[in-house]
């Protein structure tokens, strides 16, 4: 059976046609799965939000303008979502922030729960690309994320002077710390003032 000759035109043509066909196939797959993937992510998001703020019953996503003003306080750490949480009685119980500080292998997506007064109530690392066995210690070493629970805006600098990092996973650990600090700073700058408006009207 004859093989196509390796002339420049044939080579470029074959690779080009393959890529076009591949892109078409992937576009259809993407369209077919997009809604389901988004739905799955929403479910995961709800679970992640309840995990960081146990008192939150209902989470309401804040408007984009608040997100933009939050970014002024966040420095270079992106904030991708802020939720206001209401407890079972409909009172404001705190806030949750989704932030993605830069780790060693890329952004470390995490959700941080803050109570009414800006005290850290829970930390949940939802997605990351840290090195397995080293960077992943930010999750497997449970004490690490748990030590941030209770940090509050007033004593932030004291806490920063005295906390434990993870040997061999410095960049990953720093990312988690950056996320916490960012959340607290955003609370201080923006969220504190939002505590009372719009709350309670279920």
């Amino acid at each position, binding site marked *: 059976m004859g093989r196509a000759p390796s002339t420049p035109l044939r080579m470029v043509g074959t690779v080009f046609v*393959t890529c076009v066909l*591949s892109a078409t196939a*992937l576009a259809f797959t993407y369209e077919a799965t997009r809604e389901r*993937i988004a739905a799955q992510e929403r479910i995961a998001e709800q679970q992640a939000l309840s995990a960081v703020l146990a008192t939150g019953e209902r989470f309401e996503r804040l408007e984009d303008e608040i997100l933009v003003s939050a970014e002024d306080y966040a420095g270079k750490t992106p904030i991708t979502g802020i939720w206001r949480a209401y407890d079972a009685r409909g009172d404001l119980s705190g806030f949750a922030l989704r932030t993605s500080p830069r780790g060693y292998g890329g952004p470390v997506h995490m959700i941080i729960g803050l109570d009414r007064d800006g005290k850290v109530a829970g930390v949940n690392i939802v997605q990351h690309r840290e090195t397995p066995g080293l960077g992943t210690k930010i999750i497997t070493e449970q004490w690490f994320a748990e030590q941030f629970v209770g940090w509050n805006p007033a004593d932030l600098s004291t806490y920063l002077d005295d906390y434990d990092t993870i040997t061999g996973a410095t960049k990953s650990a720093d990312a988690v710390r950056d996320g916490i600090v960012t959340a607290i700073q955003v609370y201080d700058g923006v969220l504190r003032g939002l505590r009372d408006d719009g709350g309670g009207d279920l």
Partner: protein
Amino acid sequence: MNEWIGVFKRGLSLDNPLVVLMIGLCPTLAVSTKLDGTFFLALSVLFVLTTSSVLISLLRSAIPELVRIPVFIVVIASFVTIVDLSLQAYLPDIYRFLGVWIPLIVVNCIILGRAEAFAYHNPPRLALADGLGMGLGFAGAILLLAAVRELIGSGQIVFLETTLIELPQWYRAPGVVMLFPGAFIVFGFIIAAISAINRRLYSRTTHPVPACTITEGGDVR
């Protein structure tokens, strides 16, 4: 037809990618701590291997020799992305467990190796046999490894939240089985067992163990 069955059987036994050729070990050792996650990895590999082998075999006369590897990789990567998106949509928990190992199927040298060594030189009919045989051979070996590791290492086998087997309470699971050293040890026993079976089954046939057809080097990752 005999030729078809011959090619198909080679992937299962004498050319088994895992226990004989020993390629594609990286995902095998890393993932085989849980039977259900491993099952879907094996299924994904089987799907990608079979579809890409058949497609490459169909296109083989149109692919110029010098650009064959890029074309193979684009074809394989497309099928892997289809698997990736589907798992993400329908089995999010499994997707989270397998993590990076799904995209890494692209560089799994079983698949690239079969494309290069077999599918590019044989008609689609045989490429299908080769893909199915190699894929099922991979699945069989990795599932055996995962079942043994999960049972010994955690004392039970759980498949999609259904407990299949549970060892009695007094059993203390040795944690090392779940780590890489344990993976190597268990895998070593499996290789020994399969080689013994292969030797008994094939020692008296007229054609001895066929030469290894893989030309690629070790695992890419």
